[in-house]
Each structure stands twice: as structure tokens, then as C-alpha cells.
């Protein structure tokens, strides 16, 4: 394990939190804020985020293994996944800061930045705060260091190979409770009637029941694998904690309720559109944008990904257009 590569200070005498160093970046938290410092133009630059927003974003970056492309924690800092190597940046994908030359980017081995982020979460997430949970379902992230919440930040999910519930595949969620926001969702399962000799060869499950029992928000799970086409539905409440920048086309199908998406330019963050999706709506997120969603009522979203190897390079080189369909 590369834990030995994590560079941190002793706990602060004032608030109990450690500070961390990632290359030339310095990351510290106090009772309310996370502060990031970096060098640019011969000076030490800084940026602050509310601690809860930083921890929710960092949690997604860890859980998603840096995801597909850019994970902007906010309009200044974030990561870009090169699949094995990962950039951490400040201002590089903010049009104003980039133009002013006060941005900074450093690339790290994926294991090193992952170990550092995990160490940050272990130290900075207090007892009672769950960065995966909706705000009304968890305690506060603020205040001086008080205990930890290792169980919440180290949830593990079994990867789905074909479809949940098949023998040897990821489990269904029958042992989990129905979320309060989905108390009205039917818990009926499909009826499966196999002829003699074909027992166990037909398979179906209630996706809506499965989603109604998710205990996390903005954290997709694979529920169907068709070659390199992955169905990754998820349940959403409050704000997507990151502004996801696409390195490929991604699709959303709104299964229930409503999400509003702020869409911006991938490189500068300049606003492009607000997309309101209601039950049954289908929309593509092009390969040249970033997006962040807002869901007042906990909703079900079917995220659809293409994991064909080499796609980021094909989009970045211009071989593939950023838009999935010409019409």
C-alpha cells in the first residue's frame, strides 16, 4: 500500500485536524473551511471551500476512482483522470484564473493521490457526518475534529459483471431499508416462471425497488452490462457534489422526479445551458462540457456510460465529435 507516501502534519493543537501535502499543493481544514495553497507566478496562492462541500466532492472522487474525465470540486480545484495518472489542479479549468496565469497543475501516480485523498477523508470526516448522504440525513461536517466515520467513507460495493441478483454477481438490496423519499415505491418483484430444466436461467428484478433502497446519493451502481455499455443508475438528492467534466459522451435518463443540470464549458466553466429533466426525459451530456445537477426531491437517474477503451483520446484528438448524434 502506498500509504507511506502520504505526507501530513501532526494534528493541529487548535482544531485537531492534520494538514496534507500533495506535491506542491498544501491542503488544510479548520472548523468550517478547507484551504488549498499552490505556487503560481512566484507567489503562494490560495482557495477556500466549505468543509462539507470539499468532503462530499473528495468522497465521490475516491468512490469513483477519479471517474471519467474531470471531477471539479468547485470552480477552482479538481482532478483529471488519465487512468493510471491523475492531475490535481487549481484554476487550470477556470477561464479567468487560467488567463491570469495563477493556475497550477501537477500530475500524480493514481495510487499516491488516492492514498492521500483517503487519508484526508479518514482525518477530516467527523463522527456523525456521512459525505454520501443527503444533508437532511446526516450530521454536521463542521466544528473541531471529533472522532471519525470510517464505516461511511469505506463502503464497498461488489462490481456487477452482468446484472445484480444473478448467481455469482452483485447482490440485490433486500436487506437494506427503503429510503424515506421512496416510501411510496412499489416493492413488488417480477414473476419468473421457468420451464423444467431452465430454472435459474431466466432473470429479472425490480430496478425501482433496488434504487429505492440505496443509502447513498450521487453514486452510480452498475445494473446491466451490454459489452462496453454500462447502465449505472443512481439516486440523487440535493446537489451533485462535483462539476463533472466529460471526457466522453454520457447519457442521462430520468427515471423519476426532476433534476436540473447546470451545463458549462469543460475548459473555462462558462455557462452554456440549464437542462431540466423530468420523468422519462433522455439527454446527452456532450464530450466538451461539465455538468452539475440539483435534485430537490430524491430522484432516480439512469446514467449510461460507454467504457470502450481509448475513448478520451478519440474525443480529445477530434476523431469523434463531442455530440453523439448529428441531425
Amino acid at each position, binding site marked *: 500500500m502506498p500509504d507511506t507516501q502520504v505526507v501530513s502534519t501532526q494534528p493541529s493543537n487548535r482544531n485537531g485536524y492534520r494538514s496534507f501535502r500533495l506535491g506542491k499543493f498544501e491542503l488544510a481544514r479548520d472548523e468550517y473551511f478547507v484551504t488549498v495553497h499552490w505556487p503560481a507566478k512566484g507567489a503562494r496562492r490560495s482557495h477556500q471551500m466549505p468543509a462539507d462541500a470539499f468532503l462530499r466532492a473528495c468522497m465521490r472522487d475516491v468512490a469513483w476512482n477519479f471517474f471519467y474525465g474531470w471531477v471539479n470540486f468547485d470552480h477552482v480545484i479538481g482532478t483529471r483522470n488519465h487512468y493510471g495518472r491523475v492531475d490535481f489542479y487549481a484554476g487550470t479549468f477556470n477561464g479567468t484564473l487560467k488567463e491570469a496565469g495563477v493556475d497550477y497543475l501537477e500530475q500524480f501516480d493514481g495510487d499516491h493521490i488516492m492514498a492521500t485523498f483517503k487519508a484526508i477523508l479518514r482525518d477530516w470526516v467527523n463522527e456523525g457526518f456521512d459525505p454520501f448522504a443527503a444533508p437532511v440525513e446526516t450530521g454536521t461536517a463542521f466544528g473541531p475534529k471529533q472522532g471519525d466515520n470510517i464505516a461511511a467513507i469505506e463502503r464497498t460495493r461488489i462490481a456487477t459483471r*452482468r*446484472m445484480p441478483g444473478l448467481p455469482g454477481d452483485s447482490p440485490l438490496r433486500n436487506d437494506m431499508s427503503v429510503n424515506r423519499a*421512496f*416510501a*411510496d*415505491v*412499489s416493492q*413488488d418483484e*417480477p414473476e*419468473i*416462471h*421457468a*420451464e423444467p430444466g*431452465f430454472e435459474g436461467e*431466466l*432473470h*429479472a*428484478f*425490480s*430496478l*425501482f*425497488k433496488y434504487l429505492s433502497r440505496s443509502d447513498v446519493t450521487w453514486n452510480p451502481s452498475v*445494473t*446491466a452490462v*451490454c*459489452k*462496453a*455499455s454500462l447502465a449505472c443508475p443512481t439516486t440523487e438528492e440535493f446537489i451533485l457534489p462535483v462539476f463533472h467534466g466529460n471526457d466522453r459522451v454520457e*447519457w442521462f*435518463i*430520468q*427515471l*423519476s422526479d*426532476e433534476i436540473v443540470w447546470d451545463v458549462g464549458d469543460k475548459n473555462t466553466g*462558462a*455557462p*452554456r*445551458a*440549464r*437542462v*431540466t*429533466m*423530468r*420523468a*422519462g*426525459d*433522455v*439527454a*446527452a451530456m*456532450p464530450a466538451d462540457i461539465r455538468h452539475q445537477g440539483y435534485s430537490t*426531491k430524491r430522484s*432516480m437517474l439512469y446514467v*449510461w456510460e*460507454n467504457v*470502450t477503451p481509448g475513448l478520451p483520446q478519440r474525443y480529445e484528438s477530434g476523431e469523434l465529435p*463531442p*455530440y*453523439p*448524434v448529428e*441531425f
Partner: protein
Amino acid sequence: MSQAHTVFGSLKDYTKGTIELVSGEARHYVFSNIFEVASKAQPYERIVVGKNLEYVQEVMRAEGVSPWFACAHDEFALCMDGEVTVDFIRMKHPPGAAKNGAVLAGDAPEGARMGHVKLKRGHQVLLGAGNAYRFTATVTGVLMQQTVLGDLSVQKWREICLS
């Protein structure tokens, strides 16, 4: 404490969303609504509503009995509205492994009957590689199918998308 009220769409009750543009074009988001698409479709017409290179999401209006379909690879159908029974046959002569997307399997595919699955809203069924399948809607509804672009896929983006 407010009571949960989850809003699902249906053929009879859906409200399509909107796009507020700052720059660019609405068509870049390839925005449609599966209930609207199905409401204007022929039964079991496989209309593509999502396309990611060769991979697609197809929407079908489930009404009456479908033809027998088959596919060389796994597909997955999600019932978004209505009630649908899916019958399965283990094909004696399945489509060749290189064939992408669903194909018609004839009026009476040769093979053993495997059984059937009854779906309601929110239920997802595996349409396993090499098996023929046929839908029968006991209540008219909507199916969304994750598959690969094939001979039966219908693309009519101008008709279904915001632009």
C-alpha cells in the same frame, strides 16, 4: 414530516423538461422523452432515444403481441409503464456471434420453451444472448431496451428531439 410522492411518467401522464440555452444549440443535448416517443410510435417499433457510438437505448410502445426477437448478445429491457409478459425460447439456431442488435426470429423460432417473466413498472429483465423473446402487453406500456444498434433500430432524431 411530508409523505413521499415519487413522480414516475407514463403514456398518459408525463411532463417533458426544458433546455434554457446560454450558448450552443438544443440539439446538442439530443433531448427527448420516452413516453412522448412511445405515444407516437407503432407497437414494438424500436426507436433509438440514446446512442453512444454503436450502443443504443431503444424505446418501444408495448401494445398487443410483439414479433419474436433474438440477439447474439445480452440485452436488457426495463418496463417504464404498463404490464408486459416476456416469453423465452432457447434457440436451436441463434444469431451469429458477430451480429449486433436485435433481429426478427420468425413466427415460430425453433427451440425449447424456457418460460416467461411478468413485468410491471420498474422491472428489468435480462434478454440473454441466443434466446428468442416475445413481448405481450397485458396493459399497454413502454419498454426501454439497452442494446446495440441493429437492423431493427429506427432513428428519427428530428422528430423526437428538442432542436
